């Protein structure tokens, strides 16, 4: 399910200001992309075009950079972003089973967002909470030392 791109005057001028102050610094593209993603939540083609014109870098190159790095997203994220840690410490303690359970509960594949824009699911690299393995996060909340059976209860807290 794709959600159309919505721009506002405020967001637009914020991005233009960042482009302006970064223009003269060498190698500032990745910094601008980070900032743009903070503003819009993701990097749709419309935003990439604005950056391309502002920094005078070909759109193809920008698209190349956006798709190279895992942090940048072409798709919008859900209101609640769920990330399951698949770092080694979590993996050996069964975080793959947590991920399977989340997929089943939300009817989602990794990288996608539910139709109502509420939940998105991703698998991430080690977040460093290895002492709590296995771990997943919902926005800034960390859930650790849990098993697949705990998943429905945790999700219920966010559902209404």
């Amino acid at each position, binding site marked *: 399910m794709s959600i159309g791109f919505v721009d506002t005057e405020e967001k637009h001028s914020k991005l233009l200001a960042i482009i302006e102050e970064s223009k003269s610094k060498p190698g500032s593209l990745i910094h601008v992309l980070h900032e743009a993603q903070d503003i819009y939540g993701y990097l749709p083609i419309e935003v990439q075009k604005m950056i391309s014109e502002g920094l005078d870098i070909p759109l193809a190159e920008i698209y190349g950079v956006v798709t190279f*790095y895992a942090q940048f997203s072409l798709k919008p994220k859900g209101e609640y972003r769920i990330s399951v840690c698949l770092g080694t410490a979590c993996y050996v303690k069964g975080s793959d089973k947590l991920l399977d359970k989340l997929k089943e509960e939300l009817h989602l594949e990794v990288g996608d967002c539910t139709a109502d824009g509420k939940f998105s699911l991703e698998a991430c690299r080690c977040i460093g909470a*290895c002492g709590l393995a296995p771990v997943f996060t919902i926005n800034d909340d960390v859930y650790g030392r849990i098993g697949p059976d705990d998943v429905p209860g945790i999700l219920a807290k966010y559902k209404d």
Partner: protein
Amino acid sequence: MKSLEELKAIKEKALGDIYVRNVKEATGNTDGKTTDGYRAHVMVCAGTGCTSSGSVTLIKEFERLIKKAGIENEVKIIKTGCFGLCAEGPIVVVYPEAAMYCQVKPEDVAEIVTEHLVNGKIVKRLLEGVEKVEDETVTEEDLEGSDFFKKQQRVALHNCGRINPENIEEYIAHDGYFALGKAVTAMTPDEVIDEVLKSGLRGRGGAGFPTGRKWAFAKSSVSDQKYVCCNADEGDPGAFMDRSVLEGDPHVVLEAMAIAGYAIGADQGYIYVRAEYPIAVQRLKIAIEQAEKYGVLGDNLFGTDFSFRVELRLGAGAFVCGEETALMTSIEGHRGEPRPRPPFPAVKGLFMKPTILNNVETYANIPQIILKGADWFTTMGTEKSRGTKVFAVGGKIKNTGLVEIPMGTTLREVVYDIGGGIPNGKKFKAAQTGGPSGGCIPASLIDTPIEYDTLIEIGSMMGSGGLIVMDEDTCMVDIAKFFLEFTVEESCGKCPPCRIGTKRMYDILEKITSGRGELSDIDDLYELADAIKNSALCGLGQTAPNPVLSTLRYFKDEYIAHVVDKKCPAGVCKAFMHYNIIEDKCIGCGKCARMCPADAIVRTEHIPDGHKLASMAINQAKCLKCGACMEGCKFNAIVKE
């Protein structure tokens, strides 16, 4: 900052403010209070590990209850960096007693405040290392804590948990920026490089290249502009040493980079840090701002003509950017693809100018080497691996967390003495070091000393410091597949050996773990591994086959078991697993059939002797191997084999 005298004055003042924590060095306070009037400090770990286990709530609770007790002018709460014992987090240390409380819950705060901070009685049951409370008397031994801390030697982490990382004065109180002052006012660049060379310090990021030699190469390159870079793009799964240094002691990196800049003749530094480390990024930003304000970064440092500035660059989630040339292309704003070497970065690096790149932990050793001398540093570790190494110990081990040990310590000491052994009475099977570039150390080699060269000899590597412990429930073929899946995903795609080769190796492992393997597949793995090692462009590709080669070296029998016997000895690979119902134990209640999501369990017609109902049986063709039936059975009648 005009002179060392000015820095000394700041140190004197700062020592007074931390008097309750640092009784030895500080002078002039006779009433037992800090200069700003506090009699106790409560240090709460605000590293990522403890934040995840709830230290932010604790801080709020301490603030509330200390205020309620009316002692907010006597007791100060300080956020600090990682103590290392993440499994026991959140951790709180109360000074002047240095009482370390672990697994502190919000409901424990009231007791600490009333008993310890108001009545002066240490809460024994919460002390780290105290397992049982028989009487309430707290001995010196109780305060020393467990073996986890006793066997460690903290050099790179010496300030972590000891200072407030967001306050430059606390860093200065512990001799911060004195090494930089000494270097620029009393040493020539060559003398700085000589000291680092003599210390024998080797890169802590993985490959172990001598740091002094790297600096000497960059110094000898002639150019109008040179750069100093810091690799804080810690990407090995399960490794978080660098993050802890950045979160707990960010100034040490800035100071060391400035020293490196002085040594090679650079005035600009870049720290390339993972965007996934928001706390570290925030602390670095604060540190840079404060360092500029105090004049320990900027123009004409310590009244000399040496100037140095540091800029932060955020990564964007690409493992390959930990490779030095890829990191530089990424700072330049491009896709993080590696470049062929030579030319080496010391000749043509960032923006095609001579550049040195060291990792966070390497830098964390530099100020102390300059201040205390190479001779002090060489007293630690072994002849070819000097100093200490930090490991992030995780997996199937009791004390997960951060550990700093002298080089040459054996794996056994790390796993059993510091790590507290394997939980649930399981047997140690292997330890994995070096992440996706490293290999396994099997139980038979557990007495190997941890040094750069011995680890390479046994087919693993030091790596950046991830150390994952595995027990008998871990399938080595599955682990090799896990690491290869990581490399396949993180391969940048520039060179075919890595892009195509690792994928083909992964496919073969997938074939083996799903029960379709043949003996010739093992030969193909060797051949592919050899080709990739010899022809990939960068370190990521060249080392990608290591997890497969090292598991083949020590656990070939497991590969054979998968291929020939069609069995997974550890019971991990689903394709080989079967759930069975033991007829004699099954009372025929039918709960398993109701739990089964695939309708794979049906009632037989056979009623065992002494039972009332016919027993259940699993239709193996329909079974999804989810294990729901086994979890649901109260009579232990279902087994996994």
